[in-house]
Every structure is written in structure tokens, then in C-alpha cells.
């Protein structure tokens, strides 16, 4: 079994002998991986914005006039008992009229025999709820007696969710394409290297060399190139994020643990690319 020190010697020997090829493929890899990093950062920050928006979501429950005032405490308890509801705020008919007049001008209800505005409860949530959860809660609420209408800004939540979903889809597609670029880059680099070394490969096989001499150094180089390219990309992005500040928002970056896992996964992609590059030569 070949030792790691020999792997490193073989890799450094290859880089020394094939400086331009190694540097070129390393730069292409680094750029491709930085593009994935940027999409990831974009996704994290978009998701955060979405969560911030969801945090502001309130649900307003309008009561029927048939509900007597004496039943309101029971209604309030029923609302508080619902999952993730942190508090409720009651708005009487008079208060609703006052708010309407504040918003649209005094005297807007003049001439009417009685105040047509319904009583309502505003529900505040302890945890953010997405559209699906809000729909489910709405279905629960409509079953309660005395509730006339429910309002929670469904159209704009739907719009935000759609935007997020489309961005994610684009992200997956672009990420997939970039992953293909990484694989092809590794495969092509290794194929070129393997072709240039095919004579040496032949000699190694004549001497009885096994996979440890023929395959593993390529795979190790594939892993190290992609891993180091990924790590360098993160170092660069962390540095830029540290230097650049936006007054409107703060850029959220992945945790160091996540970037390490990502770099290891990039390295594994590098192994796959290296294998794709040399397998035909080895099987021939």
C-alpha cells in the first residue's frame, strides 16, 4: 500500500512537471466553486429575508355579529389554544371605526345607522408560519362558530413563496451546471494528464504496479485540488464579506463547519472527476 507521503510526492512532481495545466484547471475549479458559494450565500440570505417577512405575518379573525360579548372570553381562549399562537389582541367595533377614520378620514361612517365594522381578533404567532401552515390554521378557524372571515395577506405571502421557489429552482439548475463544469474540468485535466503519462503508465504496469501507483495519486490529486479550491474560495468570500458592509442588511455566511463539509464534498466531486478522466485509460 502506497503511503500518503508518496502520494504527496507524486502529486507535487506532477504539479511541477505540468505547471500550466495544473494551475489552469485549479483556477477553473476555484471560479466554478466560488459561483456555487455565491448561490449558496444568496440562498441563505434570501431565506433569511423570507423568514423575516413571515415573522411579520398576523392573522385577523373577524367575528360575526351573532357572537354575544359574553362569549368573547371563551373565543379568546379557543384562539390561544391553537398551535403556535403566542397572543391575541381584540378590536371592538368602536375601535375598528376609530382606526378606519384615522386611516381614511373622520366622518367616513357618518350617515350610517349603525357601525358596520365587525369585531376582530389579531392573532400573533410564536413561530414563523409558511403559507401551508397558515392555510391549515385557517381551515381550523373556519370550523369555530362565530367566525365570519379570516385575513392574513395570502396573495403577497404566496408571491414571496413563489419568488423564493423560483430562485431555488434556478439555483439548483445553475448549481447542477456548475457541478458538471467541476466534474468535466477534473475529468479533462486528468484525461490530459493521463494521456501525457500513458507511456509512464504502461511502464508502471509492466513493473507490476497496482492501483496504489496508478489510480490513487490521481484520485488524491482530484480530491486535494477541489478541496483546496473550495477552501480558498471560502477564504476569499469571508474576507470580502468582512471588508464590505451594507447599511440596509448584513450578509449572512454559512458556518465554518458547513463550509468545511462543502469543501469535503467538493473534494469528493474532484475524486469522481479524476476517476472519470482516467478510467478509460486504466481499463484499456
Amino acid at each position, binding site marked *: 500500500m502506497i*503511503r500518503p*507521503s*508518496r502520494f504527496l510526492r507524486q502529486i507535487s*512532481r*506532477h504539479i511541477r*512537471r505540468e505547471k500550466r495545466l495544473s494551475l489552469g484547471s485549479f483556477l477553473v475549479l476555484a471560479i466554478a466553486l466560488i459561483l456555487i458559494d455565491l448561490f449558496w450565500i444568496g440562498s441563505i440570505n434570501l431565506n433569511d429575508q423570507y423568514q423575516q417577512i413571515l415573522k411579520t405575518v398576523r392573522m385577523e379573525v373577524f367575528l360575526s355579529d351573532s357572537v354575544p360579548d359574553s362569549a368573547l372570553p371563551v373565543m379568546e381562549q379557543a384562539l390561544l389554544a391553537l398551535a403556535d399562537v403566542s397572543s391575541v389582541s381584540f378590536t371592538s367595533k368602536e375601535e375598528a371605526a376609530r382606526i378606519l377614520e384615522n386611516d381614511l378620514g373622520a366622518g367616513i361612517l357618518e350617515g350610517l345607522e349603525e357601525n358596520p365594522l365587525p369585531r376582530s381578533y389579531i392573532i400573533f404567532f410564536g413561530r414563523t408560519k409558511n403559507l401551508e401552515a397558515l392555510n391549515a390554521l385557517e381551515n381550523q378557524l373556519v370550523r369555530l362558530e362565530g367566525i365570519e372571515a379570516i385575513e392574513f395577506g395570502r396573495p403577497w405571502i404566496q408571491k414571496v413563496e413563489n419568488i423564493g421557489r423560483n430562485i431555488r429552482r434556478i439555483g439548483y439548475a445553475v448549481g447542477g451546471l456548475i457541478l458538471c463544469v467541476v466534474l468535466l474540468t477534473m475529468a479533462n485535466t486528468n484525461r490530459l494528464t493521463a494521456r501525457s*503519462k500513458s*507511456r*509512464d503508465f*504502461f*511502464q*508502471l*504496469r*509492466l*513493473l*507490476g*504496479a*497496482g492501483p496504489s*501507483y496508478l489510480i490513487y495519486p490521481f484520485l488524491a490529486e482530484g480530491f486535494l485540488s477541489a478541496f483546496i479550491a473550495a477552501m480558498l474560495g471560502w477564504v476569499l468570500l469571508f474576507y470580502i464579506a468582512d471588508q464590505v458592509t451594507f447599511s440596509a442588511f448584513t450578509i449572512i455566511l454559512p458556518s465554518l463547519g458547513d463550509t468545511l463539509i462543502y469543501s469535503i464534498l467538493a473534494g469528493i466531486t474532484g475524486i469522481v472527476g479524476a476517476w472519470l478522466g482516467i478510467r478509460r485509460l486504466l481499463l484499456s
Partner: protein
Amino acid sequence: MIEFDRVDFSYSSQVLFSGLSFHLHKGQYLVLSGPARSGKSTLVQMIAGMVVPEGGDIFIDGRDLISIIKSRKELREMRRRIGGVGGIYSLLTDRTILENVALAAEIAGQPARVARKNALEACSKYRLGHVASHFPDMVSEVERRTALLARAEAGRKNLIVADAPTAGLDEKSAQYIHDRLAALRLAGVAILYLTAGKGPQKGPDQYLCFREGKLTP
């Protein structure tokens, strides 16, 4: 050690071997001579397990070549016992002479330190010390071929296949290669020498010639 028993082989409708037989014993020095396209290199490729015969049998150390080729591990182990100079055997271009000499021993599983020490000794013995740190394209042809012999010795090979090892060398250099082969033979290494000419004058135990797909004395 090597036995060809009525081996048949043709290449592009040209019959190369027709019932070709010979036997190379342990420690024997055998010269096979024949003109160009007589099948010398094909024979070397068969011994290396790269080409299989169309008929007959080949035995390497008593094992049938076909069954050796079927197992990758056995094929590797067989190849590790064979050293070569000339023909299909050459040095790795991206390694120094010392690294090349150490290579066979490394592949055979010797620890790197031991392989390097043996390679240094072999380089010194074969007068390659002054070019040990050079790459193959920086040294002379005779030094490259000598390095292949040094590699075989450092790798403790028990068979050396020399395919026209002195082709293109001047008389003095050719004699030096012949002397080294004779010395290896004295150390108990079997040598199969293939040539289009006469081969070494002193040292070999037997001379055979390719004639009409067979080997004759």
C-alpha cells in the same frame, strides 16, 4: 522459469510463431536472434502477459500464462519478478534516474527508505552516481539502459528480458551492457536476450535463431 510449448501466433495474416518452443531455466542466459519482424518483440509482450498465444502453452514459473492473466493480482506479481531493458521497457520520464532505479523495489513493496538505499547502491555499482539526480532525457542512451539494469538489480528481479539492449550503441557501450548482463547472470539472474544480430560473444549458455516461426539452434 519460462517455457514456450508449441506456441502459435499470427499477426495481420502473417504467421509469426508456428509451434515455437523453447525453455529458459533458472539462472540460464539464453540468446534468441532473428531478423526484424521475426516476432522477437511479440515474444517479449507474451512474457509480459500483454499478448496471448493463439495456440500452444506458455508457462512462467510453472504457471500457465492464460490463468495468470485472468487474475490481475497474479499478473502484477509475475511482472514484478521480471526486469527489462530495451524494447517495451524504458524509464519513467518524470522521475530521476535514482527514482527510476528505486521504482521496481517500491512497487514490489519495499519500504521507501530501503528501496532508496538499494537504489543508491545500484546506482553506485552501475556507475550512475553522477547522474542519479538527472531526469532520463538529460542522460545518454547507454546510461538509460544501464539504469534499467540497475533497476532490475535493485528490484531483485530473477529474470531480465533484454530486447535489443545494445541497439544503436557504440561497441564500447555495447560491451559494457554485455558485461553487466554477464555479471547479473553470475548472480543467478536468468537472462533472455533478443537481438537482430549475433548477441554477446561471451556469457550466454545457449543461442537460438528464429526460422519460419520456430526456434532452432
